[in-house]
């Protein structure tokens, strides 16, 4: 965040405020002699050109100028040329401002265009339908043409992409309908005390071996560091767990054989075993996992225990998993702020609040994901009175209804799909295997890929169902949930009151799992 801020501070005044001030002299010096009041070569007059880029015509004229400059067509070779530095500055200034203006002008005065799902919506929608979240890197990216990634004009469809959709669908369905045991990711630090103490001893021994000399640090500093390490080991309870201070991070890098969690987004069960000590009355201890979620450690105050929570987590690209101990003080201490800082050598206070961190366990819940996924496709179980074909037809029909966001599948298309299924079965494929193809076809068909609205052509109102879809994709980039559908079917959603209350209640109902 720091870098971003600095960047803006530097560029903002340089670009925005002075556009007119910097462009005018350049134009006057290099352009006006041929494109001015007296002479207008190519019927172009630049001395009176406005610098207000919020006006579309003006912005387009400036774009022409930029094109000419970029192509080095102007100023003509026999005229005086600007210095390279000045030219660079002008080009950057113009490019920056026009990019900004372009984004502003995009999509103005246009009607809503039918468009395909963008990448984020597609991944979320696939998740809702199959229970499988496709990897971000595995799905082809969109080319953004505007500031919004749901800008219809930029969301192209090509034969390549259509084929990819089918592949992605197979990937998800293969996983969702697999009967094979799923690899469960488990990572565990059983004895945090030993791990930490060993590391501390090793570090201390290393310092001593080098006779307190280090390339980066002074002898005095090294001696202090050494003393600190020893005092860590001398603390009470240092044999019972990793003693984490308030604000300190316990760094964990989960790894299971060759598998790491780099960039993984998934549900996890996190179990933490430990005890919190030296708190004052009213202090509240927390463990911040991966800088994303707070676990309340109140139960662990002076009481060793294991607590677990299920969370949806996003791992960084390094796969690091920092666990930060944080104490919310009842009484704020004014003045001195005792913060743990890894660069300074502060003596350890054995009486400060501490988390005696015993063990930690991280388990991915993919197994449950698969069970959920199976249920998402096979929404109902087979009745004994039904034939296999009847049952399959029902499953396909239900799946299409969901995939088509509350619109039914046509009888003709349904017949094609059920025929495909029957054909697959008669070719000796298993029923589960045979149904994948019709489902994958649904997931690459136009009614699924495109967000279309029928009613906007002739009236300015959308239907209740379309409203539900709009609302849901606008807020979560994913399809409506059952409650929203039910409201839409009953025709209640379009009333102003329901709509307003729905916006709030759905936000509450659906937690922020649709990130991406």
């Amino acid at each position, binding site marked *: 965040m720091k870098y971003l801020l600095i960047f803006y501070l530097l560029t903002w005044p340089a670009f925005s405020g002075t556009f007119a001030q910097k462009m005018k002299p350049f134009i006057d010096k290099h352009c006006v002699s041929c494109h001015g009041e007296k002479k207008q070569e190519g019927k172009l007059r630049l001395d009176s050109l406005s610098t207000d880029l919020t006006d579309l015509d003006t912005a387009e004229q400036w774009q022409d100028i930029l094109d000419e400059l970029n192509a080095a067509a102007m100023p003509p070779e026999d005229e005086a040329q600007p210095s390279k530095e000045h030219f660079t500055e002008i080009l950057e200034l113009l490019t920056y401002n026009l990019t900004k203006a372009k984004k502003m002008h995009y999509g103005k005065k246009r009607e809503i265009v039918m468009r395909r799902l963008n990448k984020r919506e597609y991944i979320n929608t696939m998740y809702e339908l199959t229970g499988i979240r496709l990897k971000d890197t595995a799905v082809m990216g969109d080319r953004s043409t505007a500031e919004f990634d749901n800008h219809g004009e930029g969301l192209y469809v090509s034969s390549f992409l259509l084929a990819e959709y089918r592949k992605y669908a197979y990937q998800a369905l293969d996983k969702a309908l697999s009967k094979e045991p799923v690899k469960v990711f488990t990572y565990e630090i059983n004895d945090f005390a030993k791990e930490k103490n060993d590391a501390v001893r090793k570090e201390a021994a290393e310092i001593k071996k080098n006779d307190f000399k280090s390339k980066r640090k002074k002898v005095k500093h090294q001696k202090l560091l050494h003393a600190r390490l020893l005092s860590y080991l001398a603390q009470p309870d240092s044999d019972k767990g990793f003693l984490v201070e308030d604000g300190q991070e316990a760094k964990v890098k989960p790894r299971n054989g060759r598998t790491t969690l780099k960039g993984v987004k998934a549900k996890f069960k996190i179990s933490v075993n430990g005890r919190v000590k030296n708190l004052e009355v009213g202090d509240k201890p927390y463990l911040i996992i991966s800088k994303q979620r707070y676990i309340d450690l109140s139960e662990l105050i002076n009481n060793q225990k294991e607590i677990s929570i299920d969370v949806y987590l996003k791992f960084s690209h390094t796969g690091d998993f920092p666990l930060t101990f944080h104490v919310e003080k009842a009484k704020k201490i004014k003045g001195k702020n005792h913060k743990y800082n890894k660069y300074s050598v502060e003596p350890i206070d054995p009486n400060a609040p501490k988390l005696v961190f015993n063990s930690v366990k991280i388990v991915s819940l993919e197994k449950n994901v698969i069970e959920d996924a199976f249920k998402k496709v096979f929404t109902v179980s087979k009745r004994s009175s039904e034939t296999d074909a009847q049952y399959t037809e029902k499953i396909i029909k239900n799946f299409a209804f969901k995939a088509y966001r509350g619109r039914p599948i046509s009888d003709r*298309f349904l017949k094609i799909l059920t025929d495909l299924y029957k054909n697959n079965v008669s070719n000796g494929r298993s029923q589960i295997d045979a149904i994948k193809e019709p489902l994958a076809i649904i997931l690459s068909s136009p009614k699924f890929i495109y967000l279309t609205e029928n009613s906007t052509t002739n009236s300015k109102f959308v239907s209740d169902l379309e409203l539900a879809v709009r609302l849901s994709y606008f807020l979560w980039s994913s399809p409506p949930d059952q409650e929203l559908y039910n409201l839409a079917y009953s025709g209640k959603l379009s009333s102003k009151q329901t709509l307003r209350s729905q916006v709030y209640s759905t936000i509450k109902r659906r937690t922020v799992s649709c990130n991406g």
Partner: protein
Amino acid sequence: LTPLHNNHSAHNTLGYYLTCVDKKKPKGGTYDLVSCDQLAAEKLGGKTRYSSLEISGESKNFMSRDKSGKPIPGFTDPLAIYNKLFSNGKVSLEERRQMIRRERSIMDAFRDQSRSFERKISKTDKEKLDEYFTSIRHIEKNLTKAETWADVPRPKPGVPAPKKGLQGTEQIKATYDLMIIAMQTDMTRVISYQQPIERIIRELKLGSGHQLSHSQKSGKAATRDVALSQLLSYLLDKLKSTKEYDGSSLFDNIILSYGSGVCWQHSISDLPVIVTGRGKGKIKAAGYVELDEKKNRLSNLWLTILQSAGLEIDKFSHSNGLIEEIRA
């Protein structure tokens, strides 16, 4: 060389590199929307299993454009290219034929389905839908091709499949290798490849490509250029050492154009381009060629290459002549 296109996006200079299209005059015939490789594919692709191969090191950006000017995406991972070219999926001929027939009926069904909402939607949406129908038609065209090629066994690549998810230098080398095999086995005759430059720049620890283009110092850019040139020479050496059935080398029979969409900063004038390969005697080495200002157009190069490759055209985009210096 200077393409006459507008700088549509300051950072996507390659987007219109192969078309030289002028955004403001897209219609009226003079300015082509289609990229030169696709034009070549139409003519040269008739006799091969795939009319063209589109590759980009970064999965977002593709240079090739279809007839309506829409980008044509393609492969990123070398393994995907390998599978597309050489893997048959272990099915019998009859099964493959059946699969093709089935795919046709699915495409028909998709078309039906989109027609059902075509009747109800507005004009702008119809344009969007046209894009979809074009894609479907393209798939069907490929199916027809697959049908004719169904009983022709695929050639053996003679090399093991590349590893999945190669990046940077490794990715480029593996892609070069596959390009050569694809040409040697005559799977395709037209290939466009946008190299993952950003990745290379990161590998060389030179910051980002954007910084590099804007930097006034040229030392870092030189480091990048040396690295890329070494890769190019790897490709050229391989092209020269790969023999065709008649004893000539691949190098004798191809035309390779290698270049960049940006000169410095956002400037799209005076782009450096290397043209090599003998093009079956149609192209000759001419050393460093500086073109006359009036004929200094990228579209002239594309026209020259297309003509040398046997296309009977006398104009491409805003071309105003051939580059005689490189014509043999």
